[in-house]
């Protein structure tokens, strides 16, 4: 290792100035762990994430491989089920478990990145709107009103119809149509925060507005947004499933939970596992995210940890 860097006073300074921050993060983590429901949600989400990342190494079945001789194989515990297909096969004989695991990648990827895009746009616009106020504020908020007034599904469907279905388009459309929630939330917090005396004190010594926003405003408004973000991930996953169900999601033949639902719907009377299993996957993923988000909200609530 480079020992000279660790010995320089600048490095030590940097480590020392980080220490209180790490202490605060650990404190938050402890608060999350103290809550059983949040812990359960966190563990469940972690399992889902691990499964979706590691399945190609553990479960060697191609989600796209068709086996027309083995159509509608039921799950292994039902009569007629085989160990070759743990959760059975669909109408084209494709392995349901493999498709579920592969579909989790699409759902989680779209869910988290779309929320990231939405947060980025929402935070920037919300900060500007709340801090500067006046005409800029009115302008941004009227645009937000337009977005709110426009039916969300109609917007996404028309954009996807024009741009064509792809993962990237999906992320952008879902992200950009969801920024309003964040912008409004953050604007409200900024409005009350910018009247605080520490903001005024910083202005009094002549600090630049952008530095005030980054140093004094953003760190104090970000935690409710992180919580909101985790909760919105669940919404985005549902929307993605809905769009996939309508054929507007990820392009075929990529398996997604929404498409599995849509395709399995036809066979609901004969092959219950085709709709039930992706439905359960969506439900448990959303449940785990919501539990974690709720726990995070409680843990970050300043009234509870006396911040």
């Amino acid at each position, binding site marked *: 290792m480079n020992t000279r860097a660790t010995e320089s*006073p*600048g490095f030590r*300074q940097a480590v*020392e*100035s980080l*220490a*209180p921050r790490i202490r*605060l993060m650990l404190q938050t983590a402890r608060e999350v762990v103290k809550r059983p429901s949040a812990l359960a949600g966190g563990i469940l989400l972690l399992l889902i994430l691990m499964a979706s990342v590691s399945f190609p190494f553990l479960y060697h079945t191609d989600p796209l491989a068709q086996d027309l001789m083995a159509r509608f194989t039921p799950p292994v515990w039902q009569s007629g089920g085989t160990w070759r297909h743990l959760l059975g096969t669909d109408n084209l004989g494709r392995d349901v478990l493999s498709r579920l695991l592969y579909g989790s990648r699409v759902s989680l990827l779209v869910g988290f990145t779309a929320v990231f895009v939405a947060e980025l746009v929402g935070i920037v616009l919300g900060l500007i709107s709340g801090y500067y106020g006046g005409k800029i504020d009115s302008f941004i908020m009227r645009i937000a009103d337009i977005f709110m007034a426009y039916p969300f599904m109609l917007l996404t469907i028309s954009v996807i119809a024009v741009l064509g279905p792809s993962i990237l388009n999906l992320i952008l459309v879902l992200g950009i149509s969801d920024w309003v929630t964040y912008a409004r939330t953050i604007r409200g917090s900024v409005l009350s925060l910018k009247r*605080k*005396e*520490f903001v*005024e*004190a*910083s*202005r*009094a*010594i*002549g*600090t*630049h507005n952008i*530095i005030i926003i980054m*140093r*004094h405003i953003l*760190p*104090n408004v970000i935690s409710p947004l992180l919580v909101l973000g985790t909760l919105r991930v669940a919404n985005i996953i549902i929307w993605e499933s809905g769009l996939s169900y309508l054929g507007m999601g990820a392009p075929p033949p990529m398996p997604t939970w929404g498409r599995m639902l849509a395709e399995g719907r036809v066979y609901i009377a004969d092959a219950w596992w085709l709709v039930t299993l992706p439905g359960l996957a969506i439900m448990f993923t959303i449940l785990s995210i919501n539990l974690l988000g709720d726990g995070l909200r409680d843990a970050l609530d*300043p009234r509870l940890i*006396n*911040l």
Partner: protein
Amino acid sequence: MSNLLEVYKLSKYFPVRSGLFNRKKKYVYAVDEISFSVGNHETLGLVGESGCGKSTASRTILNLLTPTSGEVWFQGKNMFEIHPRERRKLRQGIQIIFQDPFGSLNPRLTVERIVAEPLLTHGIGDRISRKQEVEKTISEVGLLPEHMKRFPHEFSGGQRQRIMLARALILKPRLIIADEPVSALDVSVQAKMLNLMLRLQKQFELSYIFVSHDLGVIRHVSYKVAVMYLGEIVELAPVKSLYATPLHPYTRSLLSSVPIPDPHKKNRKKVILQGDVPSPRNPPPGCRFHTRCPECMDICTQKKPPARQIEDGHIVSCHLHSAGEIWSPPAPDR
């Protein structure tokens, strides 16, 4: 030699729109043509009821609020006319301390970063020298070096005010505007804070503008006192003269409301004011105090009393004292 700070006919009106389509424009006369000066190493006490414009005045002096009219001269320079870059430099010499020790510190920054922020903003020193400077300054205000790594919620109200004071001191200012710095503190902590401020004043040759509604505190720290009522200064006098012979009926009633910790003196005459302070949106004509004045005369309801100098440096705006010569604030040297 000119004074450190000269405030000349400073006004701040807040526009209030009303009526159909916001056509009628009215004003809240928060601060109306106040003038005073603060010399080197002096403390000016600014006293008045809540809502009389004390805080607005201190924020307007700092240009945190844009003044409607008037001038502020600091170290012989007009703060509102000089180049912004020069003003920024000059402003290092004026610092402010706020009232609320819980709202004035960012809960997510360590004490070190809070106190170092003025240095950072003005680009003074590097990381190491700034840290040393912070360490030195917080020990001046009676905090320990290990407090630097802590967050504001780990401190009491008095300690927080000390942190604010350290932050104000770190740029080595000439003038500190203290906006009710002790009114949120317990009485015992107040005394410690006041004595600390007085000690620092001696040590660093500071001037203070000390805003308070507490006449006892003002008497303890001030050199001169300005009494404000509804946005105007009604009496301005050296502290001894003001407390010995208050001239304005408002000042008298304020002073008589201060409790005296001596049971034998409990029969002193009290001047108790009737009613509330009129709205600064619609100040009464003539003398602004006439609606509540126990010695109101006919002229008071019609004519605004001019400021008169009764004794040397003792200035009052009241028709009861028509003997003195009419006083107008000396225009700052140009």
